[in-house]
């Protein structure tokens, strides 16, 4: 028992990190070193320079993704919080039905929706509008967000709200002064999960955005891949991978507790 755990932990470490470490070392190698040099030579920062000085610079994609992520998170929460709160007041059967639909929507592989959403974007002139992406992204993250938030709200004792009602606080005041502060932990874990979804989303960004200075991170990466099947600039690409992963690494390090509690709460209540 005592010996098994360290072995499994070491295995997990290797399994999770080896591909990432390989990317990291690739990002510092010259093209010559990548096709069979020794470990003592061929180290360079050139790949990072290429990626950051390209046109558009890699920073641009990160900024784009961050902008869309922030807008998506804001929009999703501002719709999901009232919805989760409203859900609590519904009759049991209606509530149960809505929750089931939300679970179905959360499980649904959303890639199936891309064509109709693309048509919508064309009709409304939302193609190549970076922030317009926040609208489908919010719609797609709403099921999970509402499920998590309503689970958080359900955990709040009824008495607090009844007391507030008797004190004459109206709906908005109750939401704003009582429910939101108590909900802060759930709120933050939901926000992070929504942000992660938006940061990583691919098929919709792929079909909505074609101008290269508006690409988000995943689409920019894939565009490098599509440039040529035989001569992908792996060094430069690895540098992009490392840069693109850093914000996520930071996010996961800072908020791992919130992410885990969000995910597990979703599993428990779902």
């Amino acid at each position: 028992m005592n010996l098994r755990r360290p072995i499994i932990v070491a295995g997990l470490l290797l399994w999770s990190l080896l591909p990432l470490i390989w990317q990291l070392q690739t990002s510092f190698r010259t093209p010559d070193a990548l096709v069979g040099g020794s470990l003592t030579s061929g180290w360079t920062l050139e790949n990072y320079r290429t990626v950051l000085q390209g046109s558009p610079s890699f920073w641009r994609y990160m900024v784009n993704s961050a902008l869309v992520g922030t807008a998506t998170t804001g929009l999703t929460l501002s719709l999901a919080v009232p919805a989760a709160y409203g859900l609590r007041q519904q009759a049991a059967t209606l509530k149960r039905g809505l929750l089931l639909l939300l679970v179905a929507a959360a499980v649904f592989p959303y890639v199936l929706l891309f064509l109709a959403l693309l048509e919508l974007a064309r009709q409304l002139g939302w193609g190549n509008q970076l922030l317009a992406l926040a609208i489908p992204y919010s719609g797609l993250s709403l099921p999970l967000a509402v499920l998590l938030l309503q689970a958080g709200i359900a955990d709040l004792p009824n008495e607090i709200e009844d007391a507030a009602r008797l004190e004459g606080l109206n709906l908005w005041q109750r939401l704003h002064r009582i429910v939101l502060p108590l909900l802060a932990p759930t709120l933050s874990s939901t926000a992070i999960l929504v942000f992660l979804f938006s940061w990583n989303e691919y098929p919709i960004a792929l079909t909505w955005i074609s101008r290269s200075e508006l690409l988000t991170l995943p689409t920019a990466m894939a565009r490098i891949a599509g440039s040529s099947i035989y001569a992908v600039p792996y060094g430069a690409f690895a540098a992009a991978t490392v840069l693109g992963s850093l914000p996520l690494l930071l996010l996961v390090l800072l908020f791992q507790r919130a992410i885990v509690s969000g995910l597990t709460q979703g599993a428990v209540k779902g």
Partner: protein
Amino acid sequence: MNFISHFQGQPFATNKVESYSRGKSLSLLLLAPALALLAIVFVWPLLRYGWLSFHADSVITGLVAIPNGGANWIRLLSDGRFWQDALQTLRFAGVSVGLELVLGLALALALHQRGPGRGVLRVLCLLPWALPTTVMALGWRWIFNDPHGPINALLLQLGLPSQGFLSTPSTTWLVSVLADVWKTTPFVALLLLAGLQSIPTDLEEAMRLEGASPWQRLRRLTLPLLIPYLGLCCLFRVAQAMGVFDLIQVLTDGGPAGSTESLALYAYLNAMRFLDFGYSASVMLGMFLLLLVLSALVLVVQRRFQQQQELT
């Protein structure tokens, strides 16, 4: 202090207390914006596909929708590429999810034992899951590159010939499974760990005292109590794996010779490359129906297990 002034000082004069029914209609209003957006994003596309799948809408018709009866659906039934992709997607989903559940359960059981560094382990579990799929898909392409990737470099060093992992159909789909398992197993483990933590420890202690072996405890206590979690994980993962798109598009673009093409990629190609929107809609609905059947299957199996458990 007299009664009247006492009550006047209180903020809860009856006219200020919201009536319950008014609160109820207000709460419906709170739900409305979210429901509206959900309808646009989830319901509208499916309705639109239903309509589109009974129309010819492609470059041939000048991108104008013309009703064509059930022609798209008849074509779908006899479209070898659709059924081949369906089998390939099922194979990918079946093997990936199977491995993820088994490995994820093992990992969760290992992590469940108390020990140092739980926070660090969680971060490591989350990292592969949090990275964009497209990013690591390219990473895997480099790792399995022929002949310069590390795997082939190792093979060459051992005096073995390098392998075209991504140019041979029999190995390419396995690489895609590996990439999916790498990304998702730790995530599955995390969800199952939440399930494990919900099992009261005194039950396990009681079984231990009765002399049950670890294997018996797992079979008779842990697994039965985990069934709801396993079922949910399975449902979620099967649905996501059946819709695999990002990974396949970037890793192999469906190749070699279409041997890794998934249904979602086929639907995408129909719309974006062949510009045949009517047929693309049929492919997507066909995929949706397949998914409904599979989900129902997962739920039935889960219920079966659960009932069996309640009987014994």
